[in-house]
């Protein structure tokens, strides 16, 4: 009898649980989460695990037998080459992102003003540098910059200019790697800015034109404010990718001459894989994290603030 009463009490609870599960399953957010779950697991496996593992590696001694805490980082702080790599990585990333943004913005405007029927062709052509695998395009650039048989120098030679030591002199080597990075990355900025430009309502420009705004005022007071978020996000993404760049420097200069083009990734590879000092290599590559975190926090905070204001 008591059991029967208890069963009677439990039944509505179980029903409630079942219906609440059903409701949860019917929620769009739950479905979305479940659908994204394989990707989340993949990211956890391919990104979070290696990141944590590299953190672990960075705390070991050279022979990977002893825990040294922050010893590798403290060691790096005392190395002249490390600070040179920090400086070069900043020059490389900031200069490249700045010019990619400027070129992307300018080209996006040109393409935006091309009549719609011809725009597709231009978009396709301008995206070519971005869609070619960087390792392949870098090899082509390597031949153009070759120390002894540079195609550029051959052309310059016709006009009695040069030869330019594209990869043999510190200034020109830095110029070369930044130029190639801009060449590869500018189309990404272009396509992002073009999408942003298309989303700016025409009425705003029409109203501005009625008010007598000139071309510069339209850019400054309408286009740029409307594109601020996309500019910030694109710059952030590009900054992260450019800071972590490996292939361009590795293929074109391998960090030379005299270490003057090394960036974090190439120096980390030299120390870790070529020099068999994996913990120190891991410590160098992790040094990018605080720099990029600070940049990400500032940019994303700005975007959130503007989102709340609007």
């Amino acid at each position, binding site marked *: 009898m008591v059991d029967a009463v208890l069963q009677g009490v439990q039944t509505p609870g179980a029903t409630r649980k079942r219906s609440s599960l059903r409701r949860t399953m019917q929620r769009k957010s739950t479905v979305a989460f479940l659908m994204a779950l394989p990707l989340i697991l993949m990211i956890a496996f391919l990104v979070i695990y290696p990141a944590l593992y590299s953190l672990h590696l960075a705390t070991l001694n050279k022979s990977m037998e002893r825990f040294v805490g922050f010893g590798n980082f403290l060691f790096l702080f005392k190395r002249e080459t490390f600070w040179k790599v920090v400086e070069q990585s900043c020059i490389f990333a900031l200069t490249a992102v700045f010019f990619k943004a400027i070129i992307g913005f300018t080209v996006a405007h040109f393409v935006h003003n091309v009549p719609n029927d011809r725009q597709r062709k231009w978009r396709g052509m301008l995206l070519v540098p971005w869609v070619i695998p960087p390792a392949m395009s870098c090899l082509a650039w390597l031949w153009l910059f070759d120390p002894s048989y540079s195609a550029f120098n051959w052309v310059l030679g016709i006009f009695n200019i040069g030869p330019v030591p594209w990869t043999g002199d510190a200034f020109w080597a830095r110029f070369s790697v930044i130029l190639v990075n801009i060449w590869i990355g500018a189309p990404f900025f272009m396509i992002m800015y073009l999408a942003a430009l298309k989303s700016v309502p025409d009425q705003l420009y029409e109203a501005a034109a009625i008010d007598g705004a000139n071309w510069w005022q339209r850019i400054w007071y309408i286009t740029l404010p409307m594109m601020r978020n996309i500019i910030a996000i694109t710059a952030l993404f590009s900054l992260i990718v450019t800071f972590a760049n490996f292939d361009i420097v590795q293929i074109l200069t391998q960090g030379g001459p005299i270490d003057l083009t090394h960036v974090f990734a190439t120096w980390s590879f030299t120390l870790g894989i070529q*020099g068999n*000092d994996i913990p120190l290599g891991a410590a160098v590559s992790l040094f990018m994290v605080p720099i990029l975190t600070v940049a990400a926090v500032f940019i994303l905070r700005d975007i959130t603030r503007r989102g709340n204001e609007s």
Partner: protein
Amino acid sequence: MKRRTFTRRRFMATTAAASATMIAAPFVRTASAAGKISIGFWDHWVPGANNATKTLTEEWGAKEKVEVQIDYIPSQGRKNLLTIAAEAQAKSGHDILAFPTWEPQGHANSLEPVDDVMGELIKQHGKVNPTVEYLGRANGKWIVVPATVGSQIKGPCSRIDLMKQHAGIDVVAMYPAGAPPKAEAWTLAAFMKAAEACHKAGKPFGIGLGTTSDSVDTAGAFFHAHGAALVDAKGTITVKSDKVRQALEYCTKLAAFLPPDAPAWDDSSNNKWLVAGNGALIMNPPSAWAVAKRDAPQIAAQCWTHGFPSGPAGRYAPFLPYFWGIWNFGKNKSAAKSLLLHLSSRAAAEKMVAASAGYDLPSFEKLTDFKTWAEEGPPKGTLYHYPNPHNHQILSVAAAPAPARIAHQIYVQGVQTKMIARVLKGEKMEAVLAWAESECEGFMRT
């Protein structure tokens, strides 16, 4: 039925007996080496050269009833280094793996000692040179076996015509095919004079000053020829020594006669320099000559591979051995040792040398007389002196005799070539020495 109990005492006795048997048992050399074995060979850049190792391994597998699985791992993009690092981390992978020059020392604790194999090979083929010992032994034991495939001497490859015409040197007479060298006059001073003359004639020597292996090896041999070491065998930094100053001074003077873009050169630059007919000499194994034979036969017919010039401390040539090692976590170590013995036999080495058109080099003293080197051409005999058959050069590796963990860093970071490039750029010699000293201090970490 009486049940037999397995006491702790019995367990200890059985384990001890089993261990003693395993330790005392010789590695398997013949038909009992059954099972499976996986090998990661270096992917040779001479077309068709992989066939030799493939045939030899499959032949051994069929004879020993062992299933073999071969992977050819290229060194382009440092894929071989990545594979070694990954397998060492995962404690899983190939049974036998090809290790380039410095890698065995970095993974000494993960490699199976091969004293038994090396003892047998030294008995059969004679001694190995001190560089092979320096790189292949750790804690008093052999940890790897020197591989014929990939091992090379990076001596001079000169243009017979250009050296005669511009420097007045007959390299063929100095290094006659089939006879001992007559190279007493081939000194660092003569080399410098020849470099200057060829530079003046618009055919400079093609020696790089980058941080890749070819450049570092050449600089290393010049330093050795002066008796200059950045760090000595005990691990003491000796950068600020007179010998280092002399070596640096010599190399900087020589650099003035090299192509102006030499600091940007990589390992392909000197090959292109020779094949394009731009210079009178490069420092390379015969691969550049082999490419010239295919792409520019008229240039190949004028190439002669010979010995290094001698300096105050002797005549040193850069030797870069490759090794075969067995992981201590490998699953079929006895079969691996048996295969390494097979691959290191005279007949096997001869096949590998022939398949690589003379490029590959056994490290044992009795294996320098194969007919490939005597007969390859044109010109016939061009490779005769490549394997150092008359032992008139000391085979060395840059940054030796520093303890291997330090020397490896000096080598990989190209400290010696960077020193030359810095002086060439206008930095004061003492400032460059101070920089190199600080770099070496950084390499001392354990």
